């Protein structure tokens, strides 16, 4: 019988799914991934810039931890990214792909800015700030609940819907900036610069401390909510299997809408923190892409809010470091983007080796 040559040889590799992996093994794989990423980056650095890679890495770390001010900025950036990641997480756990955090944050921020602009210092901060908070949350909720309502009732595609709502959200912001800034520059300056009305107060003289504390509290609440509350349990059931949810009598529509209210509310809160606690102004670029980066943060942490503090640290650290080396070495921004890209690629890629085992052809049979 004629036998095809290639048929008689066993494939060199075959891949099998791991049924389970010990946690420390997973972390060893992750550590190897980061080390290999840094090695690969070293070659890229040498090839592209001829700088000493160790020097470049040192600058990167200095970008985040170089001075007290830099540490505070790092923490503030982590807090904001984490806040938005927390917002998308309940929706993601329900397999509702909320790609509209960007818009929900923006509308929340716009609501705060409007309050600041119109009330000025007519009412005390003690009253104005709660009003802004409520307005922002309400804005985020409205922006989040519209796609949820359509999804629940008519089964529309939530990814497209939420994504398009982002573009819709930039329009009212652009419109109000035009109204508020009559000179036509369409750039909103700092609102209430002199009176600081509607500005979140400094805590212990630290500018961003209040933001960070608020997000830390939200992190703990979200963790408990998702893991231990009845509503969190319903979210998991709906996400895993809508049929099972129906079978045990969960009102799937209600859960979808309720969860998106929560998701939108936390986005609104992020908008409030950005306007009231950070920028004191609003622009169409308020969220600055964090609404999308948050998706990665949430996924990398497998929707666990506590792990998300680590993943958002990682992302912010890389971004800050990349910016720092770009200025310190007068490099093109693209070089630092390449480096962060390589590192993130390795970190995401190593999940494959955590989930799968690669079996090599054994020596004995290979001969």
């Amino acid at each position: 019988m004629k036998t095809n040559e290639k048929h008689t040889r066993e494939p060199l590799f075959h891949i099998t799914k791991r049924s389970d992996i010990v946690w420390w093994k997973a972390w060893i794989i992750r550590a190897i991934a980061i080390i290999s990423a840094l090695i690969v980056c070293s070659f890229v650095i040498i090839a592209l810039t001829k700088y000493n890679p160790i020097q470049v890495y040192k600058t990167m770390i200095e970008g985040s931890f170089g001075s007290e001010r830099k540490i505070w900025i790092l923490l503030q950036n982590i807090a904001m990214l984490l806040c938005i990641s927390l917002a998308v997480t309940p929706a993601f756990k329900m397999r509702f792909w909320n790609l509209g955090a960007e818009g929900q944050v923006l509308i929340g921020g716009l609501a705060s800015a409007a309050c600041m602009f119109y009330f000025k210092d007519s009412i005390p901060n003690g009253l104005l700030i709660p009003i802004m908070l409520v307005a922002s949350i309400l804005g985020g909720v409205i922006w989040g609940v519209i796609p949820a309502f359509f999804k629940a009732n008519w089964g529309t595609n939530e990814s497209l819907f939420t994504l398009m709502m982002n573009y819709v959200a930039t329009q009212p912001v652009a419109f109000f900036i035009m109204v508020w800034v009559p000179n036509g520059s369409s750039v909103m300056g700092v609102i209430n610069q002199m009176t600081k009305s509607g500005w979140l107060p400094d805590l212990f003289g630290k500018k961003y401390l209040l933001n960070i504390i608020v997000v830390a509290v939200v992190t703990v609440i979200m963790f408990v909510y998702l893991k231990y509350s009845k509503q969190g349990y319903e979210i998991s059931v709906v996400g895993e299997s809508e049929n099972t949810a129906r079978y045990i009598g969960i009102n799937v529509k209600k859960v979808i809408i309720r969860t998106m209210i929560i998701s939108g509310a936390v986005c609104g809160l992020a908008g409030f923190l950005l306007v009231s606690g950070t920028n004191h102004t609003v622009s169409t670029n308020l969220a600055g892409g964090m609404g999308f980066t948050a998706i990665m943060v949430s996924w990398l942490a497998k929707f666990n809010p506590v792990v998300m503090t680590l993943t958002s640290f990682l992302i912010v650290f890389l971004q800050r470091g990349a910016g720092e080396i770009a200025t310190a070495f007068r490099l093109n921004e693209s070089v630092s983007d390449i480096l962060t890209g390589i590192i993130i690629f390795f970190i995401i890629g190593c999940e494959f080796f955590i989930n799968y085992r690669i079996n090599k052809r054994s020596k004995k049979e290979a001969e």
Partner: protein
Amino acid sequence: MSNAAIELRGITKRFGKITANKNVNLSVYGGEILSLLGENGSGKTTLMNMLSGIYYPDEGQIFINGEEAVIRSPKDAFDYKIGMIHQHFKLIDVFSAAENIVLGLKENGRYDIKKVTARVKSISEKYGFDIDPDKKIYEMSVSEKQTVEIVKVLYRGADILILDEPTAVLTPQETQKLFAVLRRMRDDGKAIIIITHKLHEVLSLSDRVAVLRKGEYIGTVKTAETDESQLTEMMVGKKVSLNIDRTESENTADRLVINGLDLYDENGVKVLDDITFTAKSGEILGIAGIAGSGQRELLEAIAGLLKVSSGEIIYNNPKTGDSENLRDKTPIQIRDLGVRLSFVPEDRLGMGLVGNMDIVDNMMLRSYRRGKSVFVNRQSPKKLAEDIIKDLEIATPNANTPVRRLSGGNVQKVLVGREIAASPTVLMAAYPVRGLDINSSYMIYNLLNKQKENGVAVIFVGEDLDVLTELCDRIMVIGSGRVTGILDGRTADKNEIGLLMTGTNGGAENEN
């Protein structure tokens, strides 16, 4: 002695820590039918998937007609003339039989459907298939679709046929027809492997029987020299009594009265047509029918998951003596009325359980709403999970193992255990032993019997007519969404049920 068509030597396959096949040695010759017998999870399908190129063995060799072969893909398998007929058909609904048969085949020359049709006809005549090459798949019954699958592999010139549980979806009459065809193919010199766990089929059809147990090859025996109890012992590893106790029903009362139920699916097709029956307490009511005749819809309608267009579902509450119409009520409303209705759905991991959640969280599905707290209480579900693991002998590392990691039988025990723990007054179970091994199946039958003795009205949708006639007090047969007969389980005859299933007898409409 001539070479075996297929010979397996020392085949081992592992998935993670689980060894699905361990050192299996097996051979099949041309012109014989070999039954591959084993309980679920014994590695039958895994072994055959290695022959059809879906998996690759970790150790061992495969010889085809005496030469070592390496099968890395389904295409390699075709090149070795191995054809597998899977349990789930892979056909395109809007194509005709002939079009499906040539689909994906790279033949030289022009695409000529007439030539294909002629060849399909000649294959059909040779082996006695009953097939219309121009008929579209969506117009076909399950058994016709299966025929198309078989012709498809024969058309590709397969000499070695592997059939994975081919009779699971057939009526007794269709099974006989299939067996006749398989015998003719054997006489033509083909090697046939049939995967099954139905003992009487093994005995009536095959020449030799190979038995697997927990992935290990136990042995091969000649069918003529064996009997049911020996095969069972080989399969299970110990003697098993194959009798189901059927106690007489006592104190029966009409628990659930279904009256003139009509239901349309989302495409407007009538799937339930004037269904009327009564489920009595202390009795097992069997529902027989070809798969997809409306059994699933009926149970889901009663459970409040599907909306019926007319009819009533009357529940007589044994505690209060009240009668409630459950029609148009949601599952929550039904429970709030104090109706203790348990439901073991057909789709265990897609409906009854959440595969990615652990056993404790799956126990909680029914009970998590209890109490006013906003937080879930995992203490009592954990206790329940541990009790069920112990009582039903569920093989699991612990109560925090995701359900999808369990074997089919254990998954079902988790589900049935949870539903029974709610101490129901009505228990509906759809195909509760599908895919289960003998031990687990009998454990489920005993659990249903115990529920019956406790005065529960049990509704059991089954597929194995032998079991239905042994277990049930009454058997309702449905065909195409209509009740075609309600028989006494103690006197019902399998052939009679089979005829009612196809609707040629007793139905309002006759197929002429």
